[in-house]
């Protein structure tokens, strides 16, 4: 018989107490694993949604000309005949190495013209791509354009030009119909008129031209700088630029989510550790005669500590296994009901399993060290009481 046999026998014969200890720690571990699984799934979903929420790469012509501002970036040579991008460039963009990370490609042709005596910028867009990119767009009056002569008007422009849905806009090259008016976005879009890009190219004789391309990349899977480098390499004569603020915002959001998840998991583990600590302390009190006997028959302090820590190790290992399975199975049940707004997916993660087991053992042993050392140092005469 070895010392571990003493520990195992105690656990096996006191099934109720063992079950209580394993359950207490398993619930803590399970909650931490569930928290981590849900956090990871939410993070993936959140980052995916963030990645699709607005452009994070701008592609501009690498030419010089009159500066024109769009979104804080200088858009060169709008009307001066400098080299512009073309619709064919979109096909080339789709050939880069990280093409699977491209979510949305939204080309734009920017044309300056006069409407009702006011200088106005008209942005020719692919409305499907544009609305996928700009999920914050809300059409407050009217509807999104159906035909290619429909236009969406920015809030400020509609107010300035007194435009409402159904109105017509007479341009020197043709006529557009106001399909809808955008709600205030707080961006440059409020001052624009959005028309179908092909209509604009045709009526302003711009052929295949594109002023800039906004790209939404899923940057969770690759560094944005890699994609920018690939685009610059694929499109000579163009300049791809990462919108750093957007990227940093996304990374910051991911970082906060991660910290929250870790913090809550740590709290749960501390609570589980406290359960183990109090249970082991109570166990030592209950077994004081037994410990006194061990000392009387020649057990050293270290032997007694070994017996108690071995019990803690076995309990913790079991709790880690049980807790891991609770943690990965339970989110699959409660998440669809409690978090139906998110399309969460869960994956088996072997590293999480190892972390759960290691955390459980660490917490169980750490919580048991003090009671075990106290047990080892018990005065045998006091413990036995009869002597």
């Amino acid at each position, binding site marked *: *018989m070895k010392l571990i046999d*003493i520990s195992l*026998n105690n656990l096996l014969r006191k099934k109720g107490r063992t079950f209580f200890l394993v359950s207490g720690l398993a619930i803590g571990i399970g909650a931490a694993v569930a928290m981590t699984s849900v956090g990871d799934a939410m993070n993936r979903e959140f980052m995916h949604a963030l990645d699709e929420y607005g452009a994070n790469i701008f592609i501009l012509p690498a030419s010089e000309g009159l500066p024109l501002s769009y979104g804080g970036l200088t858009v060169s040579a709008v009307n001066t005949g400098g080299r512009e991008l073309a619709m064919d460039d979109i096909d080339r963009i789709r050939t880069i190495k990280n093409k699977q990370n491209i979510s949305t490609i939204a080309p734009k042709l920017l044309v300056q013209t006069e409407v009702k005596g006011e200088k106005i910028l008209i942005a020719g867009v692919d409305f499907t791509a544009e609305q996928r990119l700009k999920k914050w767009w809300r059409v407050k009056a009217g509807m999104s354009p159906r035909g290619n002569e429909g236009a969406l008007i920015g809030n400020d422009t509609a107010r300035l030009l007194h435009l409402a849905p159904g109105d017509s806009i007479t341009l020197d090259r043709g006529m557009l119909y106001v399909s809808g008016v955008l709600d205030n976005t707080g961006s440059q879009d409020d001052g624009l008129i959005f028309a179908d890009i092909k209509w604009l190219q045709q009526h302003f004789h711009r052929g295949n031209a594109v002023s800039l391309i906004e790209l939404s990349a899923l940057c969770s899977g690759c560094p944005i700088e890699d994609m920018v480098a690939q685009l610059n390499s694929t499109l000579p004569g163009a300049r791809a630029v990462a919108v750093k603020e957007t990227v940093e915002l996304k990374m910051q959001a991911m970082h906060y989510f991660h910290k929250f998840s870790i913090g809550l998991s740590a709290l749960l583990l501390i609570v589980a550790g406290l359960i183990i600590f109090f249970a082991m302390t109570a166990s030592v009190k209950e077994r004081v005669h037994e410990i006194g006997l061990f000392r*009387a028959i*020649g*057990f050293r*302090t270290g032997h007694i500590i070994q017996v108690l820590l071995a019990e803690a190790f076995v309990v913790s290992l079991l709790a880690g296994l049980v807790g891991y399975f609770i943690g990965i199975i339970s989110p699959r049940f409660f998440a669809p009901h409690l978090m139906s707004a998110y399309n969460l997916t869960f994956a088996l993660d072997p590293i999480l399993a190892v972390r759960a087991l290691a955390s459980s053992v660490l917490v169980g042993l750490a919580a048991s060290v003090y009671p075990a050392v106290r047990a080892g140092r018990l005065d*045998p005469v006091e413990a036995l009481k009869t002597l």
Partner: protein
Amino acid sequence: MPFIELSNVTKTFLAGDEKYDALKGVSLGINSGEFVAVMGPSGSGKSTLLSLVGGLSKASSGVVAIDSIDLGVLGPNRLSDFRREYLGFVFQSFYLVPYLTALENVMLPLTIQPGMNGTARGMARDALSRVGLDAKAGRLPCQLSGGEQERVAIARAIVNKPALILADEPTGNLDTKTGNRVLEMLEGLHAEGRTIVMVTHSRENAERAKRIIEIRDGEVVI
């Protein structure tokens, strides 16, 4: 030189702010192979004497020596080693580990003995046979009578073949007939040459020993 020697031993306890001497300047010797009964009323200091001889506590002053080893200079772990090598304890309350079988309880002292691989179980079975309980080796303590539990405790005390057996009121929780059986076992062990020190408050039990040491108010009177 006596096998067990106490030289002017005092043991003082603190009770709140007050001190009291459980043993006062006790000097005695017990030779190897003797069967000695330590007798006295409750609170006389006999159990304290046993705890000093067993290395479970240390004298406040004086020297306690077993086989010329001064127990006062040994640290806690060395004292544990000493108890493992030299002593077997038999307690009034048996103190069997409730979640271990009779065989496993007897094997306990051998669990921490180096070089016991493969032989511990056989030695434990032999010890249980000595006390007539080999058929109940797989029983838990709760499945044994009081007398059987005490016999398992005796088997545990002798399994590592100690030179000295210390018995604290071994018949205290037993009926007369069972108590007699236990005393017969102790006599049998004595006949094999072991030194036995038995604490008892019963004159009848004390007279089963070859020598009686009487203690009263912390002092040896006989």
